[in-house]
């Protein structure tokens, strides 16, 4: 009864670990499915979502804020999947997207650089030089992505409950560790953690439905009370209040909605 997120670099055997963990615990194992859900729900071509989740935001994105909206869709899709519990997610940024949920076991799987270079060489049939630069560039890109969107460094081990280095440890060893950890009491879902999960889903849904039209809104939800934070009043505030009220009536599980302009946003807001 847990949610396991596995953060990984390319060629780090993370996918293999995830699949084996899911198989052993009988959990669902997802990654791309989240994008498909989001693409279905919000009618956005999957390609655009992939681009959003892969490339770091460019200067242009800062103006169009398309990426923010896409990330809100993806986050909502993931939160919906996670709400069902018993899940292994090995897509990008699971640890940040499910922030604040207590029964999430956050794992990072890393591998020896030399091993990764070798895997890449054999799969892509390229020289060692090329493979190395490709991998390093990929790492850099992902790092930039999380930094620019969430201000977090994926290589910061403090973000995870477990960091496993696949080199001396084999994939099966890693799977054993993770399964063992997942059985711990801390990662059991309780009414309290499920409530937090429901709140996160609600917050993500509100954010996803607002993100398209309003830039820089952050949404927090606690016990079904939704607070929407915006930078300042401005001319959109009245409209935002109207939309918020409408959402409050439409989305199930919302008891109360308020828009708070110019208030420092709490960390748990999505």
């Amino acid at each position, binding site marked *: 009864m847990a949610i396991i997120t596995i953060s990984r670099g390319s060629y780090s055997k993370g996918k293999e670990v995830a699949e084996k963990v899911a198989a052993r615990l009988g959990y669902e194992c997802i990654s791309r499915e989240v994008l498909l859900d989001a693409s279905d729900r919000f009618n956005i071509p999957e390609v655009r979502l992939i681009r959003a989740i892969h490339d770091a935001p460019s200067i242009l994105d800062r103006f169009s804020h398309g990426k923010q909206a896409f990330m809100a869709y993806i986050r909502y899709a993931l939160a919906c999947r996670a709400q069902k519990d018993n899940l292994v997610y090995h897509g990008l940024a699971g640890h940040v997207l499910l922030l604040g949920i207590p029964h999430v076991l956050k794992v990072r799987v890393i591998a020896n650089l030399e091993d990764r270079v070798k895997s890449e060489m054999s799969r892509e049939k390229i020289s060692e030089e090329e493979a190395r630069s490709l991998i390093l560039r990929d790492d850099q890109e992902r790092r930039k992505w999380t930094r620019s969107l969430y201000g977090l460094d994926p290589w910061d081990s403090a973000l995870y409950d477990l960091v496993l280095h696949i080199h001396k440890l084999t994939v099966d060893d890693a799977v054993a560790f993770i399964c063992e950890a997942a059985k711990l009491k801390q990662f059991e879902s309780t009414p309290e953690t499920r409530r937090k999960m429901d709140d996160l889903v609600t917050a993500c849904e509100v954010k996803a439905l607002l993100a398209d039209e309003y830039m820089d809104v952050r949404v927090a939800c606690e016990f079904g*009370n939704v607070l929407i934070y915006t930078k300042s009043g401005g001319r959109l505030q009245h409209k935002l209040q109207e939309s918020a009220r409408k959402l409050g*009536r439409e989305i199930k599980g919302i008891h109360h909605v*308020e828009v708070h302009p110019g208030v*420092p946003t709490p960390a748990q807001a999505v």
Partner: protein
Amino acid sequence: MEQLTPEMILVMAMIGVAVFLFIVEWVRVDVVAILMMVALPLLHLVTPKEAFIGLSSNAVVSIIAVIIIGAGLDRTGIINKMVKPIVRIAGNSPSRIVIAISFTVAIISSFMQNIGAAALFLPAIQRVSKSLRIPISRLLMPIGFSAILGGTVTLVGSSPLILLNDLIAPFNLKPFGLFDVTPIGLGLVISGIACFVLFGKFILPKGPDAASDQQGQEDGSSPLEEIGEAYELKTPDDFTHYRDPVRIDDLRRRYLVNVVAIVEPPDFKIVNPPPDMELRSGMDLAVYGVERDVKRMAEQEGMFLKDSLQVFQNEVAEGTSGAVEAVVAPRSPLVGKTLRQIDLQDRFRVTPLAIYRHGEIYRAEIGDLALGVGDAILLHGTWKRLKALQGEKSLLFTTPIDVDLMRPEKAVFAGFWLATALIMIMIFKIQLSVCLMTGALGMVITKVLTIDEAYQSVDWRTIFLLAGLIPLGIATEKTGTAAWIAHAVLNTIGTVNPMVLLSIIGLLSTVFTLVVSNVGATVLLVPLVVNMAIAANADPRMAALVVGLATNNSFILPTHQVNALYMGPGRYRSVDFMKAGAVVSVVFLAVLIGIISLVYGI
């Protein structure tokens, strides 16, 4: 035309700096004024003596005296007593009530600071609104506008007019008498009230009943009252078994329900318990909340909701405690602070329930909201503690608390000294500041208010705003900057009819007052328009008078203190002020120019 000297350029630069700082508000307006007071002598634009002459000016002393007299009248509570007979005379018709109260406010405002008169009437207006079921939004704006307009009825009614005689003194113009402006002022007040009586339906926001239809049932017609419903609950005997402790603050965050009193078993009653207090088994709770939320809480937390108040009949009943609406006063030290920083709960043991701002109600996480002028806070507490909070004077209570600080028995003295001051001005023609100070001193001596109360009532921000901007006016005049700008403007627009010139001056003053405050606009514009009028062969006194009056014409934006104060309680939005303010502003200018041409025959 004169040559542009380096001094003139420097003065213009300083005016530019002042206007810029007024607009961006990096520092408060009175600090800008003090900056001018210090910078001008340092730049050798005025002598050190001139720099501080504002502090001893007729205008500043008059303002101090007017504030003290106002505070004295306030202490006696005569004003609140005046409302009852007025309402009785007016009957039940909303228009007649608007006319009656507006006119009274205008008259009082003509001898007091506008904001003081407006604040005094706020509680009374709310009571009238409640008892006669007239939407508060129909009453407050007309009355607020009348308080501002009333400032034009006498020469001591508003800061710009008090300043006027000081500003025209360097030009050797004949000073204005106390009632010289009265015909114009009364005309303005009458036309302002007429605007609302005739066009009120179109320019005032629709009553809350109409708005609630759009918002659906959830946001009922008067949410503050809806929140102020008290319920009583009891926790079961096994409340704390097998669960994390539940604190009072948790209930507020989960269900938006405020616990205002508890009984710890066996019978230890606590009114307004601290938020970090844990709930225990067999506890009685009195809460304020929306029925829906209270029921949800009772169900989910397994509490028993009682049909009526039982244990807390005395504690939550009107006699000892209650929920009151308090408005953040202009220039209150609370502006810009959050409720969490102010910590009313700890300091006064009162519980904030909700905040009302710009037509929106806030119930969740209100501790994080930074307060602004005119925000209405719904507070629950015992009368004793609320009274202590009222004594702080940072909040205006719209529900009157039985206040023993009042000295109604001194009403006769207060009236006597006000009359004495007025007689001295009118009959003996003694200088304004001396007469008013006599009245203020008389009130202190006859113990209408103590000297300390008199000192405390003086608002230093107003004093320094006035005193600091006066040297800027002196510098513009002394260096010839005003004359230079006036000539430059007249050269560009060519010769104009005096009436057109006065209209332009009126319009210019209106725009300036919205941007740089009424005092700033007056100080900057009076030297300018006097020079313009002299050059254009118009009456310079009238030009100055138009500035002094038109700088009260700030209705379009809620920047005037009175408008800012009434915005929250009236549930107005900025749009509402633009709509009504635009009409009143245009009428104001037309009436002003019309009466000046009729009375003074230009």
